């Protein structure tokens, strides 16, 4: 049997011209948003385009009629080990820097800002990009929520002004839980940044450092939007305080999404 390499050499010998690629290690990074699962781990998906309605822990019935959040970049982080000081030492002493600035794509970083539309289809993974990390053991994915720039993918057209310059935009209504009737309209529009380090997990939820190369081919960032208003108090907070509270919950709502039902099938 002729190996790929020998076939390639043969091709070259015949002067046909050749081009080929062995892909090596790749890891797809995707994102989805979801409701809160029930006690059995099942999700109730709201149809695309429908407002998202839920009750916050702070005691408000919330209805989101328009919502966008910007996942600016994602970086796969290696498991810490006792020799991590070595590259830092060389970096400091010899000025050897990482080949890629944080804002640039690298083998372990996706730097294509993506706007996530909250009223889009739930639990449908959206590909953020593909990493090509070196062999190693990785246990976290860092996700940065930052202001959208002009190059952000899926910039919405229905945000007053523009989504550029904003990290989060929400429109909807609130009312005290169980009161019924028409709610009070609110808008949260902010450029506040947030960084979350997501622990990579196994289907059961336990931390699960991923060895690469291995069987893992993708990591999904889950956005559990139903907790976003758990710290928000519409009756006592001003706009700025609300934005800070909600962004804090956005940060906490990001997780390595492992669907226990789907992954057990």
């Amino acid at each position: 049997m002729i190996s790929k390499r020998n076939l390639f050499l043969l091709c070259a010998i015949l002067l046909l011209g050749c081009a080929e690629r062995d892909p090596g290690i790749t890891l797809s990074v995707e994102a989805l948003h979801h409701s809160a699962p029930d006690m059995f781990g099942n999700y109730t998906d709201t149809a695309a385009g429908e407002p998202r309605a839920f009750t916050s822990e702070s005691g408000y019935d919330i209805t989101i009629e328009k919502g966008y959040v910007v996942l600016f970049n994602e970086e796969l982080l290696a498991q810490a080990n006792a020799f991590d000081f070595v590259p830092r030492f060389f970096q400091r002493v010899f000025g050897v820097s990482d080949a890629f600035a944080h804002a640039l794509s690298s083998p372990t970083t996706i730097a294509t800002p993506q706007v996530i539309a909250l009223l889009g289809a739930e639990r449908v993974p959206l590909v953020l990009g593909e990493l090509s990390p070196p062999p190693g053991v990785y246990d976290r994915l860092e996700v940065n929520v930052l202001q959208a720039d002009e190059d952000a993918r899926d910039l919405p057209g229905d945000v007053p002004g523009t989504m550029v310059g904003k990290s989060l935009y929400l429109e909807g209504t609130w009312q005290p839980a169980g009161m019924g009737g028409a709610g009070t309209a609110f808008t949260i529009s902010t450029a506040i940044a947030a960084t979350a380090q997501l622990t990579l997990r196994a289907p059961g939820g336990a931390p699960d450092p991923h060895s690469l190369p291995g069987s893992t081919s993708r990591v999904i960032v889950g956005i559990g939007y139903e907790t976003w208003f758990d710290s928000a108090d519409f009756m006592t907070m001003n706009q700025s305080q609300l934005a800070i509270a909600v962004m804090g919950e956005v940060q906490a709502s990001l997780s390595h999404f492992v669907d226990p039902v789907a992954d057990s099938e």
Partner: protein
Amino acid sequence: MLLTLFVAPQASACSTCQAGDPTLTIMGHGKPFEGRLRASLEFRYRTEDIGVPGVSSEELSEYRTSLGIAWTPHERITLGLSVPVVGKQLALANQSEERSFFLGDIEVNARGFVWQDRHAMPRHLLGVVAGLRVPSAPELEDSAGVPLSFDAQAGNGAWVPSAGLWYGYFRHPFSLYLSSVGYFTAGGFGAFEAGDAWVNTLMAQWAPELPVALQLGFDTRAATRDVDAGVVDPDSGGFIGFLTPGIVFSPTEDLLLSVRVMIPVIDQLDGNHDEGVSVLAGVTYDL
């Protein structure tokens, strides 16, 4: 057989701006007689490492075989054509590997003789050199139709005009050749544009009455950084200097065999970027 070898790391910038005077093998450094027609074959091997080892590293090996022809239609000008076949192997930190083998970018050159100190047996020659590298190599794709990395391409999709000066000094058995050439890149595959480069060559030759000549050269390249989709590549550009010993052997009057080794001795390349030893071997034959 040389054509079949390829395993190479080369940085994007250097597909445009390799060090060394590309006209030396094809045209020599002396003054040719009018009507001279010279064919040449040059093989070049080089390596390059870019990025942080084990993190974002690229290791490139390049085997380039160039078929050249040079014609002197008038005593004041020599025209050259160089057609390379390029083999590359690019190994990335994620264990992926890209290989290519194809026709590279064709280059045309002209060397003009502007001034000499005396008509017969001149000791000093001064001239100009100009060239144009044509994007003749297509953008190579893998079997899925995805373009290979820029560094694994046989060419770079750019028009690269060049212009410069050269000087020759002859006092048997010694001779000296000096050239200084600027390369200006326009375009490139995708949104990539390699940096411009300024390439200098200083080469001294000692040719006793034997069919062997010894050479010692110093080649430098100073380049601006590459830009990809508007983002400056931090691991490109900078300055590098090579010590270049070589030997030329002439078994018959019309045949020259040469070997040169380019050893990087000054490395001021920007970012995480290293070039290894290059080996050049050439054969020229006056038709």
